[in-house]
């Protein structure tokens, strides 16, 4: 007997339904990089090509790229986790990074290796195509779609069908700017008003029968200037979903600003034109699209339900007794599903970072515990493991502890979002990424995740005024910049309060600038003020909401009142008194602002 007879491969019960990859794109990319290095491809065209394929630039160097792998609707399967684990060790820094838009990113990849990553991704059906550049970015879907108690129906198949329709579609290859779709389950789990096209599933009774459709929101988005999206009409039946999407993109393609890179997202077009005019244009364009499709163009929505099958357990090694921290984890990391006996378990990562070993561990955990055989990436740099049987939660928790994935607080304020900041981004002014980790560590140490008054609040941090860290919709948001005392510079954040991303979406209001090394004490002070002034059923979020809307009647009535109390905390000490103040997190040399060219608008 030879060894080839002995080799066995494990077969997952569930495999990816859709292959997003095209292997020939790997060869093409490798060849183009060679031509570019030989000077046969100009800088600007190469950059467009690179971004179209999902390879973003890296801070202060042209030798490295960041490869952004799309997870349409957030779906990720065990084999894909294992492949990403391998790729992170081979071509990146031994860790990968979950973004806020259901992508998983490999940073500090040598440009010449990017094609090798494409080749490997294709083996497991993944692509980074159109993850950057002026294209339809990853189509998101709520990690709870299909299991949410408040949803009308599961929008996942529609998100997947939309992603499939636009990926590599000629009409989406050269838009004025990037274009984003977010599907969700319900208002509460939101993010639909902060995106070009946001969709909430909705059911209407039409002529006595149930008609599936969506509430569609257009023209929202976060950035240097953020806008809240507008609802197109009461109800958009599902047959009109694609026609509406095409109509909106055609208008954007035709009228979007191709010259002014800083103002070319669709939200600026909507804002400049006025919502009513834009709305009319969309409705008219949709009628034209509907009438003029030469062949009936349809979304291929696959609504075959996923197989739900509880993985077989040989034995429960925990003996039924819960390890320390289980109750805390159960409370702050899991949600009951609409399917009885099942919960969705959220795994929180520090600012979205995950090691290659943990990626492998997740693959095992899915096989062992998820009855749907896959995971979903979430909105806050996290991962959801769904369809975990209630009886398996203790052994799942024990398993997660072993791989360092059992941090509590996943569904609370203690897990801030931090964009990549100065760890890899050309535009960053501060190390927002590390700050997010520092806050999480401190707040877990203080058990703030167990404080129910804080669970529905959020902290979000960007390293510059652009909004990759989504600071504008945070209860407490920060974006980075530089502060100065005399000739000495320090990392400084603009803080905003009262942002929301649910049914009452609004942007936070500017409060004051907080030096990086004072951010934690300032947040703790805000919590203290809240505790002193709260009404019995208040949460931090509801209290701040009243303050920013001028409807609070206690001692603290306005942002300005909060500002006055916080001001003494943010006074910079001299460098001699406190040298550490002048070092940004993660840095042992004096702070100075330094940026390269951004590529968001390339």
């Amino acid at each position, binding site marked *: 007997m030879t060894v080839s007879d002995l080799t066995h491969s494990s077969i997952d019960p569930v495999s990816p339904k859709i292959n997003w990859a095209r292997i020939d794109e790997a060869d093409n990319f490798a060849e183009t990089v060679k031509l570019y290095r030989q000077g046969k491809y100009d800088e600007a065209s190469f950059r467009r090509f690179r971004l179209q394929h999902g390879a973003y630039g890296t801070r*202060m160097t042209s030798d490295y790229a960041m490869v952004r792998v799309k997870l349409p609707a957030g779906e990720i399967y065990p084999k894909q986790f294992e492949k990403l684990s391998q790729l992170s060790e081979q071509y990146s820094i031994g860790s990968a990074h979950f973004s806020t838009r259901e992508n998983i990113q490999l940073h500090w990849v040598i440009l010449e290796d990017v094609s090798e990553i494409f080749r490997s991704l294709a083996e497991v059906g993944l692509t980074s195509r159109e993850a950057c550049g002026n294209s339809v970015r990853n189509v998101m879907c709520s990690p709870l779609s299909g299991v949410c108690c408040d949803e009308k129906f599961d929008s996942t198949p529609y998100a997947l069908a939309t992603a499939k329709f636009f990926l590599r579609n000629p009409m989406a290859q050269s838009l004025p700017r990037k274009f984003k779709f977010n599907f969700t389950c319900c208002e509460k789990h939101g993010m639909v008003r902060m995106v070009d096209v946001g969709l909430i599933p909705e059911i209407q009774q039409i002529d006595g029968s149930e008609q599936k459709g969506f509430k569609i929101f257009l023209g929202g988005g976060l950035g240097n200037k953020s806008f809240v999206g507008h609802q197109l009409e009461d109800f958009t039946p599902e047959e009109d979903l694609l026609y509406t999407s095409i109509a909106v993109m055609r208008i954007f393609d035709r009228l979007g600003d191709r010259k002014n890179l800083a103002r070319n997202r669709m939200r600026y077009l909507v804002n400049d034109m006025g919502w009513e005019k834009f709305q009319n244009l969309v409705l008219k364009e949709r009628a034209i699209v509907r009438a003029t499709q030469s062949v009936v163009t349809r979304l291929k929505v696959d609504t075959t339900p996923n197989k739900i099958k509880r993985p077989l357990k040989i034995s429960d090694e925990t003996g039924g007794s819960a390890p320390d921290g289980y109750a805390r984890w159960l409370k702050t990391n899991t949600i009951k599903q609409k399917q009885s006996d099942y919960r969705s378990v959220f795994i929180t990562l520090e600012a979205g970072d995950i090691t290659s070993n943990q990626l492998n561990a997740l693959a095992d955990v899915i096989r062992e515990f998820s009855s749907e055989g896959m995971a979903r990436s979430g909105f806050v740099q996290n991962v959801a493991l769904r369809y975990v049987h209630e009886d398996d939660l203790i052994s799942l928790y024990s398993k997660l502890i072993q791989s360092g994935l059992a941090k509590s607080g996943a569904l609370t304020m203690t897990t801030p979002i931090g964009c990549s900041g100065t760890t890899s981004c050309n535009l960053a002014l501060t190390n927002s990424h590390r700050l997010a980790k520092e806050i999480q560590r401190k707040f877990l140490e203080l058990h703030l995740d167990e404080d129910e008054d804080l669970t529905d609040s959020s902290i979000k941090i960007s390293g510059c005024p652009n909004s990759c860290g989504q600071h504008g919709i945070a209860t407490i948001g920060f974006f980075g910049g530089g502060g100065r005392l005399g000739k000495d510079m320090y990392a400084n954040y603009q803080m905003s309060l009262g942002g929301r991303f649910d049914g009452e979406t609004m942007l936070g209001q500017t409060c004051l600038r907080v030096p990086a090394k004072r951010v934690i004490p300032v947040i703790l002070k805000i919590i203290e003020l809240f505790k002193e002034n709260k009404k019995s059923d208040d949460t931090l979020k509801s209290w701040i909401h009243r303050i920013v809307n001028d409807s609070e009647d206690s001692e603290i009535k306005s942002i300005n009142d909060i500002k006055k109390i916080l001001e003494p905390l943010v006074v910079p000490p001299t460098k001699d008194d406190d040298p550490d103040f002048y070092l940004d997190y993660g840095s042992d040399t004096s702070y100075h602002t330094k940026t390269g060219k951004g590529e968001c608008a390339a």
Partner: protein
Amino acid sequence: MCCLTQSVKITSDIDSVRSEIRDNSISVIDVRREGDYKQDHIPNSVNLPLATLLSDDSPENVLKLVNSMGIDNETPVVVYDDTFGALASRVAWTLEWIGHSNVTLLETTYSNWKSLGLEIDSKIPDVSKKDHSMNLQSNILATSDYLESAKTRDDVILIDNRERLNYLEQHIPGAMSLPYRTLASGDKILRSKEDMKRLLDNRGISGDSEIITYCGSVGTLSGLAYYALKSAGLPNAKLYVRSFKEWKNLQKPTIKQEDANYWDLSAE
């Protein structure tokens, strides 16, 4: 251009090693720790823990060790480890260096050998001492002095095989980063020849260039890279065996990727 590179065998596949062991026609070296070896090993293999070799890797001492393992100039040798082939590579390279021309790496690790359910044994074989000659191959060794002068030449490529973060933090000026993990594929310690060639070719590592590899301290990871290069048909490789540790101790110049906090992206 005429090409005379002959196909060099770098790894030995599992099936042929098994049959050669049965025929008693090869010598197999296990470079794991003595305790692990004593527990179980590939039948008939002899133990040369890497640490034993490193405690004195002068040519004279290496020759003694080789002789004591019953290896003469004609003995085909296969080396294996349980550390993705890096430790085995360092030992194989050392044999090559003192002039043994017939040494290959087992294509996989001992763990994988075991998980496939292949033969193992705890018996320590009797070996009779042999008499190997010394024929030092200085052309496959790079010293720090050699490296310092060579790296100014255009036709020399320097490769750093440590992990990416270590490279970003500090490396020898002019080196390119090729982390050791990149060299393997699945259960194999080295990618297939075709895959390896494509990877290296994308990086511009091809043709007649002289290539020098280094890693953190003792030339293990870079030893694996040395064999990776040869497997791709690039024979003109040298190992900077004392690697970055010596380079730093000698206070020779290093360079880092400035103005970025890449360590904070790691989840370690």
